[in-house]
């Protein structure tokens, strides 16, 4: 496989690093909203701090992406599949940005400052606004469902390319 068929090293690092981070964020989110166990508070604080890391990473990642040439999708791939592939990738970027943003805004309007690993705190509203809280809380929940579905589609498509079409799409990210 020639180098132009592969994602650049920086893009591969961003991809797998963020994959691990986002899967952990989803798992943490789903666990902490149901659990009454003593670790819930710890996990909640970790979720928020790493969520802020995620939004910084996705911005750096987008800038990095614009600076690199991407490997082309296989020529013989049906047009509709190429369209779905591109659209789903942009949707993933959108959600990776919108998830942490809605998370922060939900906490902002609920008047809950965010502690970042004990180093500093992000500000919250001095006066709680329950309508905006409700809006961003529900958005965070619905977008989480959309994100989980897209990740499933994404993994499904990667496996389809690798094992059924037997092309180089998955290898281009390894």
């Amino acid at each position, binding site marked *: 496989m020639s180098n132009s068929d592969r994602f650049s090293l920086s893009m591969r690092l961003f991809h797998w*690093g963020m994959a*691990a*981070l986002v899967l*952990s964020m989803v*798992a*943490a989110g789903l*666990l*902490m*909203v*149901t*659990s*009454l*166990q*003593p*670790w*819930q*508070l*710890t*996990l*909640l604080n*970790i979720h928020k701090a*790493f969520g802020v890391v995620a939004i910084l990473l996705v911005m750096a990642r987008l800038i990095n992406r614009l600076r690199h040439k991407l490997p082309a999708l296989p020529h013989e791939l049906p047009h509709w599949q190429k369209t779905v592939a591109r659209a789903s990738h942009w949707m993933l970027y959108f959600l990776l940005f919108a998830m942490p943003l809605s998370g922060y805004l939900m906490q902002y309007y*609920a*008047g*809950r*400052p965010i502690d970042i690993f004990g180093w*500093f*705190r*992000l*500000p*919250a*509203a*001095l*006066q*709680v*606004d*329950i*309508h905006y*809280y*409700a*809006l961003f*809380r*529900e958005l965070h929940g619905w977008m989480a469902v959309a994100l989980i579905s897209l990740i499933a589609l994404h993994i499904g498509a990667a496996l389809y390319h690798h094992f059924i079409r037997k092309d180089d799409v998955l290898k281009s990210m390894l």
Partner: protein
Amino acid sequence: MRALYLALLLAPAVSFGADAPPKVSAQQFVNLQQGDSAFPGFRRAHAKGICISGEFQANGQLADYSQASLFKAGSTAFIGRLSIAGNNPTAPDLKAPVRSMALSFASSRTEQWRLAMNTPPVMAVADPHTFYQQIQAIQAGPAAIKQFFADHPESDEFRAWAAQYQPSGSFAAETYHSINAFYLINADGKQQAVRWAMQPTVAVAANASDEADALQQEIAARVAAGKVVFDWVFTLADAADDETNPTKAWPDSRQQITAGQLVVTGTTPQLEGDCHAINFDPLVLPSGIAATRDPILRARSAAYAESYRRRAKEQLQGALEGSNNE
């Protein structure tokens, strides 16, 4: 860093011990609290209350123990709420077994503190899953709760308190307890476990009113006539005290420090005031105060968030429109 994070994610698996009682989720807990017919837009617990406002006047005596800015001599404004336990926003005030005070200090955009306190000094049980069973027993009736207490000797101190407790005629004349312990952390990083109580400065004989809103009417009239004051008293734990067990009071001999006075100067019906929008989650803490490992305390954040999510969504969908303050 990610390895650490993943390791932390695995930590929960370790704490799923095999021992009873069965683990209850935040959703199950709030379902039980709200009962069969929820009141849309209202809190699932302590649904009936009245907003209060005023300021905390610190005397500076606690400033050596905690770097939280409100303990420095001076005053900090608060928004608060006086409520009764229960899920019904129209319940008769004088029938409720527990009365409560919640406070919110928004000292700055990065330093906020929420407190939610009740009249009993201790809990009957020490973890949320047993607490769930206690509420089930209360809902099942007197025989069930009698049996529950018999099966749970850790409820001894709570029952002793309940047996001698005489409700006063006013929200102004009750003592409100943190029940759960917290750590105060000072500028040197030194940590001290504490509990606190808001202690009344007036005595008011039992209320003979037969109005459903007897306590709300009484406090509104009292505050309109002049300020209502509480002493904010902290009790410092000793090495012998277990700060993670909310069923055991600490001995009377423990050092106490009065941090200042809470001065209530205004009341507003809850749907017209600022307090209804606030979730008084006691785990929203400023720098200088931290949560202990008390399992009851640690269970509160997720349950309060679930109740808040439900009522906020209902309110967004218009549940409270046209409702007067009931």
